[in-house]
């Protein structure tokens, strides 16, 4: 999955989470607001009922006072006066209360203003009536009462109280409706928020699930590719191995078949030499017995031309034999079964150096091994041959008149061991740095014996052990051969014969 798409998904899901969080906060806010509105509505309702109670209390006390007056006029029981006084005492605070409760409503205030003188007048009437009755003027009192009754003050009070109550009822209804609509609005908002929340959640889920589906799909594709790759690698490896085995078999057969005619060439050359010896002995005999009889050309043929020709045939066939042997050795090397074992490289290298001590002393060279070298698990003979060849080369190809200094180093790195064999010898020209690893190829002045096999063998061995070899060199100053081997030999299924 491309980096950009990955970033986009992360950004989208983050946005989803953040907006969900904001929406939840919003929903919480609306819920709180809803509670508030509810509470306000409750308070208003309570207020309205309170006002209605107060006004009805006022009416009730008025009625009670009036009832008490009438009763007194009938039986002059002083308890009635007490009741009247008590009722009147309740009126003033209730009126004050009503005033304060409806202070925000001019209509009701006006009603209270209207109500107040009527109540006052009624109360005055009551007081006069009672006073007359207490003085014993019952007839005057009753007359006053009748006159007053015509004024219908109580009716007025009832009417105003009724109006008051009606107004409060209307107010209650309208306020209730208002709060109700506010509440409904809040609920709508809340609903919208919840829907938005659901939508955001669903969108986030979709983005993430699509992303994870894509991830899964790409992982499966990757797994498929991996398998394909492994199969391809295995196939290539098998191909390579087959090709390699074929080449080795070919080399083996060819070198054997070449050997047979070589035996004949050498054999009959020897027969020729033998015959030539006979002839030249005979020429000598004839010469001593009868000088001048043998022509010079015959003498030259028997004593010079034939030995010379035979000599060249011999040296060439000998060289050919060495080359064939080299191929045989290499092909046999490739067919040999490897036996990996734990190798103490410090010990192995010092043994190699010991076997080369004669050459080293002749060369006036020193070999330094920087211990500790990483231990390996490999075929002993193969590793031994690699380092023997490299050290022998280092001893052989020195700079004239410069004491050889050779150093072997090694370190382990990530499952592999890297060894370096450094010399201060004559170095290798750049054009030859690949060629020297090829069979029968040599570099520089051909002043040393050799067939051009050593490094080809070293490289074949390194490859076979799962490693590589390369060379760094400054021509005329020295060379460093770098051997890179796995710490442990992994048998790749190759069947040693």
């Amino acid at each position: 999955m491309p980096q950009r798409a990955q970033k986009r998904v992360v950004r989208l899901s983050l946005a989803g989470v953040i907006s969900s969080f904001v929406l939840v906060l919003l929903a919480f806010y609306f819920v709180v607001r809803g509670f508030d509105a509810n509470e306000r509505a409750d308070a208003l309702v309570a207020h309205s009922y309170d006002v209605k109670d107060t006004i009805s209390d006022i009416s009730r006390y008025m009625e009670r006072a009036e009832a008490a007056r009438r009763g007194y006029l009938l039986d002059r029981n002083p308890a009635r006066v007490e009741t009247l006084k008590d009722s009147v005492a309740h009126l003033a605070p209730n009126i004050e209360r009503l005033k304060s409760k409806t202070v925000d409503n001019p209509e009701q205030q006006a009603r209270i203003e209207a109500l107040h003188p009527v109540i006052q007048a009624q109360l005055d009437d009551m007081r006069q009536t009672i006073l007359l009755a207490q003085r014993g003027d019952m007839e005057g009192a009753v007359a006053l009462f009748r006159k007053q009754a015509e004024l219908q003050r109580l009716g007025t009070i009832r009417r105003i109280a009724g109006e008051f109550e009606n107004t409060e009822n209307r107010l209650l209804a309208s306020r209730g409706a208002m709060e109700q609509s506010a509440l409904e609005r809040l609920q709508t908002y809340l609903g919208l928020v919840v829907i938005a929340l659901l939508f955001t959640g669903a969108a986030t889920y979709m983005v993430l699930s699509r992303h994870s589906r894509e991830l899964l799909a790409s992982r499966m594709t990757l797994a498929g590719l991996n398998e394909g790759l492994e199969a391809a690698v295995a196939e290539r490896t098998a191909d390579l191995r087959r090709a390699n085995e074929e080449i080795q078999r070919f080399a083996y057969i060819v070198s054997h078949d070449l050997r047979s005619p070589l035996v004949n060439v050498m054999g009959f050359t020897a027969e020729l030499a033998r015959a030539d010896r006979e002839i030249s002995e005979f020429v000598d005999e004839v010469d001593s017995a009868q000088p001048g009889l043998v022509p010079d050309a015959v003498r030259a043929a028997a004593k010079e031309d034939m030995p010379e020709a035979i000599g060249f045939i011999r040296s060439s066939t000998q060289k050919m034999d060495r080359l064939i042997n080299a191929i045989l050795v290499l092909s046999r090397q490739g067919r040999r079964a490897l036996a990996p074992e734990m190798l103490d490289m410090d010990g192995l290298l010092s043994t190699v150096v010991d076997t080369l001590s004669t050459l080293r002393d002749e060369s006036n060279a020193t070999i330094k091994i920087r211990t500790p070298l990483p231990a390996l698990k490999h075929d002993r003979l193969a590793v031994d041959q690699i380092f023997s060849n490299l050290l022998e080369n280092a001893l052989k190809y020195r700079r004239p008149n410069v004491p050889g200094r050779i150093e072997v180093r090694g370190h382990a790195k990530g499952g592999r061991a890297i060894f370096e064999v450094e010399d201060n010898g004559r170095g290798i020209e750049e054009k030859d740095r690949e060629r020297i690893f090829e069979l029968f190829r040599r570099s520089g002045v051909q002043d040393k014996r050799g067939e051009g096999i050593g490094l080809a063998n070293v490289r074949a061995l390194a490859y076979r052990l799962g490693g590589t070899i390369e060379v760094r060199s400054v021509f005329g100053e020295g060379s460093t051969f770098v051997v890179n081997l796995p710490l442990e030999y992994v048998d790749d299924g190759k069947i040693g014969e």
Partner: protein
Amino acid sequence: MTKHKPVQIVMIEDDEGHARLIEKNIRRAGISNELVHFTDGTAALDHLVNAPNGPALNGPALVLLDLNLPDMSGTDILARIKADERLHRVPVVVLTTTDDKREIARCYDLGCNVYITKPVNYESFADAIRQLGLFLSVIQLPDATEG
């Protein structure tokens, strides 16, 4: 040596040159026994098993065997000789170019008596053959008819 018939040398060698060199050197070593030469395995086996003067029917013999033959492997011939109860006491000298250790071991396993690698160097080759001739002149061969 004995009153028995002289030992016949059966040489199975596909390379005429090698055969000639071997014969020359055997003769130079002073061995004058009859020497029959075959260049392929079929004819050689026919001689060994069926020829009236062959070793199976008549007299002692010694086999010089090359391993690289056109029609069959020398080791097959060796196995056939050692599996045949009339022939299995016939000494077999394997004389070949192969110096492969496994091949040598296999020949000895099959019952070969001597294994000689043909050296490319002629002097050593001639030397080896002459040694073989000396060896032939002193060994006692079992009487095949009693086998």
